[in-house]
């Protein structure tokens, strides 16, 4: 092994006991080697001495730590937990439940829930009228069909409702003749008819013909040979449909044949009543269900939420010691921590070594307001697939009243699916954490959304 290698290993502390002995022997016997070693050792010591003499400038140490910690505060969690996803989910679920409730009630031709039983007597009456008021062409070839015409009590396909109907009938009209009697009466009447074009064949409940006409249960065509009951109901389902609507919205007797489900997002451009803070955003998301109540009018419900975000200046206190100070991490700032951070904590009066350091920070705060409203909408088609609409919303938020006016265009590139773009002005009463009393806050902004149309014609 060369002298340099010995010296190098010695400086690194890597000499084995044998090599160490050989090295020491060499040093004692060879003067030049000893000088070489002394020279190298002095260089080594010089470097160690130089290393110890270098110290980090205090100002630089503080400045760099402050900057990096400030970045921690900026990046990690100073922004409050955003609830946008949750809010949208809540609004969507509410609208979906509402939608399912209505659509199932409207479209389903058989199920009437228990809650709607109070309307069954009226419904039953109408059905009975329907069965008692059809007119037939006495000269048609369908006479034979009436021999097997089912009675009102067992004909309807909607079994649940039919059974209830019968029960109500029997209670209200015990004098109603039995089914067999009705059938035989019909046969008899038909057989006795010769040159008359149209005739009421039976009227077991003795309902006046004027009542019958009021409900417009006129059969325009000869009765079909099969599925008579179903066909009859299907062609004349407007009355049951309107009753179903009446079940859900008892205030209005809607003659609706179109259901509109919409989702809107909006971003405020001009804001009013928010000058007291550094307001960053005022957006909203909503879903609505509307019913066509006339050729150009809709009426319905809209659920949504409005979201405010603003900047708030604060001071945060960061513990510097994990030993003396209570253990707190600045990565989990919550509202309570922010309040706590508004005061400067030290390790005690006159403590030479503060355990905390404070940073000025800017918090981005947010708040969501949920709202629900009724709306009236007037829309005017200008082209086959384009129409303009104006909507007036009146309702309430969880803080107070809410109102909105919306003007938007409805473009329907695909039948049943429409894109909406427009402007909206909204006003709502809100209580913000920075604002002790509630205040009206308004905005004018852009809206955009998507609508789905369901036609029942």
């Amino acid at each position, binding site marked *: 092994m060369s002298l340099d290698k010995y010296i190098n290993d010695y400086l690194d502390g890597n000499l084995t006991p044998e090599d160490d002995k050989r090295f020491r022997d060499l040093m004692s016997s060879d003067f030049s080697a000893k000088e070489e070693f002394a020279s190298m050792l002095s260089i080594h010591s010089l470097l160690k001495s130089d290393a110890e003499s*270098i110290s*980090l400038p205090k100002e*630089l140490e503080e400045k760099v730590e402050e900057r990096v910690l400030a970045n921690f505060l900026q990046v990690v969690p100073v922004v409050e937990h955003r609830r946008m996803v949750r809010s949208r989910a809540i609004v969507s679920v509410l609208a979906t439940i509402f939608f399912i409730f209505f659509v199932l009630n409207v479209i389903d031709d058989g199920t009437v829930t228990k809650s709607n039983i109070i309307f069954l007597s009226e419904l039953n009456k109408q059905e009975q009228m329907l069965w008692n008021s059809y007119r037939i062409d006495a000269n048609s070839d369908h006479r034979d069909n009436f021999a097997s015409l089912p009675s009102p009590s067992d004909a309807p396909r909607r079994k649940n409702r039919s059974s209830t109907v019968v029960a109500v009938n029997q209670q209200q009209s015990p004098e109603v003749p039995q089914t067999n009697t009705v059938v035989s009466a019909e046969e008899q009447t038909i057989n006795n008819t010769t040159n008359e074009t149209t005739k009421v064949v039976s009227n077991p409940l003795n309902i006046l013909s004027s009542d019958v006409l009021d409900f417009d249960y006129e059969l325009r065509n000869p009765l079909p040979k099969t599925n008579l009951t179903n066909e009859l109901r299907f062609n004349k389902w407007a009355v049951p449909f309107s009753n179903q609507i009446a079940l859900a919205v008892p205030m209005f007797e809607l003659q609706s044949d179109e259901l509109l489900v919409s989702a809107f997002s909006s971003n405020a451009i001009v804001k009013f009543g928010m000058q007291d803070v550094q307001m960053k955003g005022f957006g909203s998301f909503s879903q609505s269900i509307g019913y066509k109540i006339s050729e150009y009018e809709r009426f319905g419900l809209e659920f949504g939420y409005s979201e405010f975000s603003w900047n708030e200046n604060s001071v945060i206190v960061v513990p510097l010691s994990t030993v003396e100070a209570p253990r707190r991490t600045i990565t989990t700032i919550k509202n309570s921590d922010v309040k706590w951070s508004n005061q400067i904590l030290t390790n005690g009066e006159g403590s030479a070594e503060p355990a905390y*350091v404070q940073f000025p920070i800017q918090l981005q705060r947010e708040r969501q307001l949920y709202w629900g409203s009724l709306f009236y909408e007037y829309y005017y088609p200008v082209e086959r697939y384009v129409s303009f609409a104006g909507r007036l919303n009146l309702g309430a938020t969880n803080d107070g009243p809410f109102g909105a006016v919306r003007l938007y265009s409805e473009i329907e590139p695909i039948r049943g699916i429409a894109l909406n773009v427009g402007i909206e002005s909204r006003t709502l009463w809100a209580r913000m954490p920075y604002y002790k009393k509630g205040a009206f806050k308004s905005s004018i902004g852009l809206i955009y959304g998507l609508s789905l149309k369901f036609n029942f014609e």
Partner: protein
Amino acid sequence: MKFSEGRKYDDEKIAQATLELRRGSAEAFHILYNHYNQKVYRFCLRLLGDKEKAEDAFQETFMKVFENRMNFRGNNFAAWLFTIARHTCLNLIRTAKPFQDIETNSLSLSYVYKEDIGLRDFVQRAIMQLPISLREALILREYEDCNYEEIAKILGISLSLAKVRVHRARLLLKKLLEPIAKEYYESR
């Protein structure tokens, strides 16, 4: 703004802080910063040979530590930290103006010594005479007490090459510093 004096922490504390840094703990950063700031600054200063550049590199190194804290894998935080510091310093060297390097490198040690500069400056200038590859290996070994495995990892070279570089750097530095060192120790 006052900070507590830099503390040195035991290995367990450092290991714990290393884990917590990845989770975004500022407290963990504070511990690691206090533990390593001196070493990183020293490394930057001796590698760059310029105080202002060293301060820039030092700050940039810890900013990178913060930015890349999620990328840290393994348990050798020191090696990861010095790798970042080394890359930062090398970037600064690369972006430095060429004439400055020429001017610095052209200074002869004897001339400098005759100007009666301090010993630290003399050592600094001697180190700056070394090629960068030898300089960084020597600083890690002599100034930061890194073992050869750590040096190899930080420099991205093999263990044997790390040993060779440190050995060569010592020999070169001995040639440059021998007369000064001898005089320095004789005078003491």
